[in-house]
Every structure is written in C-alpha cells, then in structure tokens.
C-alpha cells in the first residue's frame, strides 16, 4: 500500500540574528499510511510542533530553512507555493492545536467559522456549507446543533471549543489530521471524551492522524505506531506494543511513565 505521506530527510534550521542557526529538525524520515494513527512523542523543544508546522508550510521562510522532502500524492509539500498550500491546508491536511480558544475568532458565531472552511475550499453555496456545518456539529457531539451553531466562542467550554475546531478540521474530509497536543488543555474527563471522539473518526472515516502528545495514556488509546523524538531527531520508531513493552531506550522509558494507580505504585522513581 502506498503511504499518503512520505517524509524524507526533513531538516529545519531556525536562522538566528547572530550566531549559528538552530537545528530544530534533523534528518527526520517516516511514512504515514491511510487510516493510521502515528503518535509523535518527545519533550517540549524536541521539534514536535516544528514538524507539524513544516508539513503545512506554516513556517516563516525568512526565519526557517527547510530541506528534505514531504511527498503527498506524489507531490512535494515543501516545494509548493503559498497558493497551492492554501488549497491543501484544511482540505487535504488539517491542523488542530492545544489552544482551541486561540484558533477561533472571538466575535463570530462558531457555526459560521466551521462553514467558512468549506466555503473557502469549494464552489458550494453558503447555504449548503451551513447545512454541512450543522451536520458536523452533530457528529462531534454538540447537540442540538442549531444552538451551538449560533454560539460565540466565549460561551463554550474548552472541551466544546476543541470539538468545534475538530469539526472545522474535518469538514472538508482531509486525508491527514495533525493533532498537536489536542487534549493538553482539557481535564481528565474531557480528555477521555475527546480521545474517544478521535478514535471514532479514525475507524469511521479512515482518517490518518499524526498525533503529537506526550501523554502515554493518550498515545496508548489511539496510536498504531510511535515516533519518539529528541532534540530534532527521531530516536526510536516502532509499533505501539513494541515501544511500550520492549523499548530499551531510557529516554523512551521516561516518556512512557504512566499515571500511578494503587498504593504499591506510589513510589518515587
């Protein structure tokens, strides 16, 4: 089977005003296949977010020098110009990030903000886009959709806003969703609900997800394969069970430390 995304030798350097450029991604190579969830783990500063932004061409070209390639449907994402990238963002590859509140315009109704993604990408009428947006509100579990459609971002909770952003990301049926710490701002109960939602879309839509998260429980419930990243390099790669049960890397083991349960596990490591 052909992978939907082939990343080869991707390197990103942040150009500094003075001093040597900072290498944020160093020779990163991996594939993502259709319907697969690839988990990306690593501490902050490891380059996880830089990788996500590089795939969408969201880095400032003046500040970040990219090399290598990222092939999607045979075309290199890194070589596309801004116009071509605009067509890809949101329709072929979507991004959701940690802070849903910052991703939405505070003075416009959330339903309109979902509909406009579809409107911007297609030749569909506004009326049709609105109807689709209501349908998506329903699918991400915001019911009754008509009421949520008319809501402003400040009227919704963090968990509800993250659902709105997910609807925005999925309304054009992208091939790949880049989810950058999607649950980091949510508390335990909402985290679990959001993970279930992603799992449902993965199985129902065959959606491929690049899941950036440093929470082992979240990776264990969604990821099929894991990439472990440190200082811009992928230090370990493998299937979920292989990494969780058989990794010898001390860095990986430290990343995978779970939430302790029961008195026996309450020990300072």
């Amino acid at each position, binding site marked *: 089977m052909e992978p939907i995304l082939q990343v080869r030798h991707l390197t990103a350097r942040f150009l500094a005003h003075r001093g040597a450029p900072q290498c944020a991604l160093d020779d990163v190579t991996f594939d993502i296949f259709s319907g697969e969830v690839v988990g990306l783990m690593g501490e*902050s500063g490891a380059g996880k977010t830089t990788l996500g932004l590089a795939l969408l061409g969201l880095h400032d070209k003046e500040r970040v020098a990219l090399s290598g390639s990222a092939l999607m449907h045979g075309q290199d994402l890194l070589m596309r110009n801004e116009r071509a990238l605009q067509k890809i963002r949101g329709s072929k590859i979507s991004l959701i990030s940690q802070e849903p509140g910052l991703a939405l315009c505070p003075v416009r109704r959330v339903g309109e903000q979902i509909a406009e993604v579809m409107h911007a990408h297609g030749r569909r009428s506004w009326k049709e886009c609105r109807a689709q947006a209501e349908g998506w509100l329903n699918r991400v579990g915001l019911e009754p959709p008509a009421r949520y459609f008319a809501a402003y971002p400040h009227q919704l909770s963090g968990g509800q806003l993250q659902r709105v952003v997910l609807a925005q990301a999925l309304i054009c049926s992208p091939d790949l969703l880049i989810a950058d710490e999607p649950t980091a701002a949510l508390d*335990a*109960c909402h985290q679990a609900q959001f993970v279930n939602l992603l799992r449902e879309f993965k199985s129902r839509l065959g959606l491929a997800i690049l899941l950036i998260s440093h929470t*082992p*429980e979240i990776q*264990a*419930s969604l990821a099929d394969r894991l990439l472990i990243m440190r200082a811009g390099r992928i230090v370990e790669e493998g299937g979920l069970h292989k990494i969780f049960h058989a990794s010898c890397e001390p860095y990986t083991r430290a990343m995978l430390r779970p939430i*302790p349960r029961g*008195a026996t596990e*309450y020990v300072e490591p």
Partner: protein
Amino acid sequence: MTAAAEQVLCVRGLAKSYVQRRALTSAKYVVHAFTDVNLAVDQGDTLAIVGESGAGKSSLARCVALLERPDGGEICHGGRNVAHLTGRDLLPFRREVQLMFQDSSSALNPRISAAELIAEPLLVQGVGTPARRRERALDLMRAVGLDPESANKRPLEFSGGQRQRIALARALALEPKLLILDEALSSLDVAHQEAMLGLLTDLQAEHSLAYIHISHDLRLVSRFARQVAVMHNGKIVEQSTAEELFARPRHPYTQQLLDAMPPLEVLLLERSA
C-alpha cells in the same frame, strides 16, 4: 498544643460567590465558586487540591492567599483569624503565605529586570537596603538554579521554565512558611516539571516549607502531595492521603476522575485485542 503549633494555616467553612450579569438582560445572578471549605496545612507538608476546570480551585487559592476576600468562614494563621484583616495588618500574613501562578509570562512585570522582580517583595515589606536586597536576589537566583549573570535580563528574555524559576525565587524572597502553587507546574514540559519537583522537594526539606498545590494533573499530584483534597462543583468531596486516595477512591467523582483515563496496561490490552 504542639500539633496546633505546627499548623501553618487552617481554613474553616470558607465560602465565596460572585455576582454576574446575564448578557442582554443584565439580570444579576450569583455564582457560588465554593462553599464550606475546610482545610489544614502543617509545617513542611504538601496538600494537593485537584478537580476539573471550573471546580473553584483557583478562586479558593486566591481567597486563601487573601488576594480576594472570602464571603464567609475563617482563615486561621498564627492562632488568629485573618480573613477580615486589611492593609498594614496583613503584612505579616503576606510575608508567610506566598503564591505562584500558572502563567509566569503574565505574572511577572515585563519591564523590570529579574533581580528587581525577585527583590520586589523585600522592597514592599521594607526589608534591608537596596544593596542587601540585590545581594539576596542573586542568592535566590542561585538557589533556584538560575545564573546570576542574567540578573539584569527582563522576564521575556528567559524561557518558560526559567521564568517559572524567577517566580519561585520571588515567592521565596520573604522566606514564607506556605507557598500556594496554582497550576504552577502545568505549563512546563515533563523534563522541566521533574526539575521543578526536585527543587521544590529540596526546598521543603531545607526550610520545612508547606505547599498547597492546585492542579488538574493527577500524575503530578501523585508524585508530589502527601494529602489530597478533591474538589467538585465548589465543594471538597473527599480528602485523604495520596496513597489512600489513589488506591481506594471513595467518592464517585474521585473514581470518575481516576477512571476517566483507564490504566495504561488496560489500554494496551484493549489495543492488542
């Protein structure tokens, strides 16, 4: 008597509500942030308060530190109720109870240097001469693992982890007995969290400092707290030692909180099926 003397702070029947106005109609309504909260913290002890967002954790922190005035109840410190004190009468309380917030970039004045920020509490309390205060600020920077060379840098020139250390040094400047950490570690990544946890544990052992640690992160709480109070809808629904709480949660809400994310082994087992 000895047991009472060791207590740093004790809170009885504390309550706080806010008056809000509805959009459009402007009709007033009351939101009860928390009601009837009872807590006690001993010297050198760590009490964690957990709960989901909106449970009233931060309002509680602000009231306990008297940044806001509670509507009712007592805050006992040094053998007397301080909840109604104002102005100068509060200075001794402020010296002993300090607060650290989640977002260090908004908690620190961006226009003054790190050393000035750290020495500011001493200035407010009128402690020492300018030279002595600066010396103390540099000592504190060393104590929290910051390079005194960068004393003249402004907060935004530091990384998030370093800024949180500046906030810690500032909170420690007056040698408080109790430090309230309001999600102070939540915005840091795993490595920095580890480093801060180590630092806080060392400081506690050295100065028998007490902490109230407010967090929604159960993993963090389980590593750090001795006592845990679970907050839900403005009430403390369960309070016990960390070992006891994680092993045998009694209140349904605590169970729900712990079960929200099933244990890693269960998740992995589900996935292999």
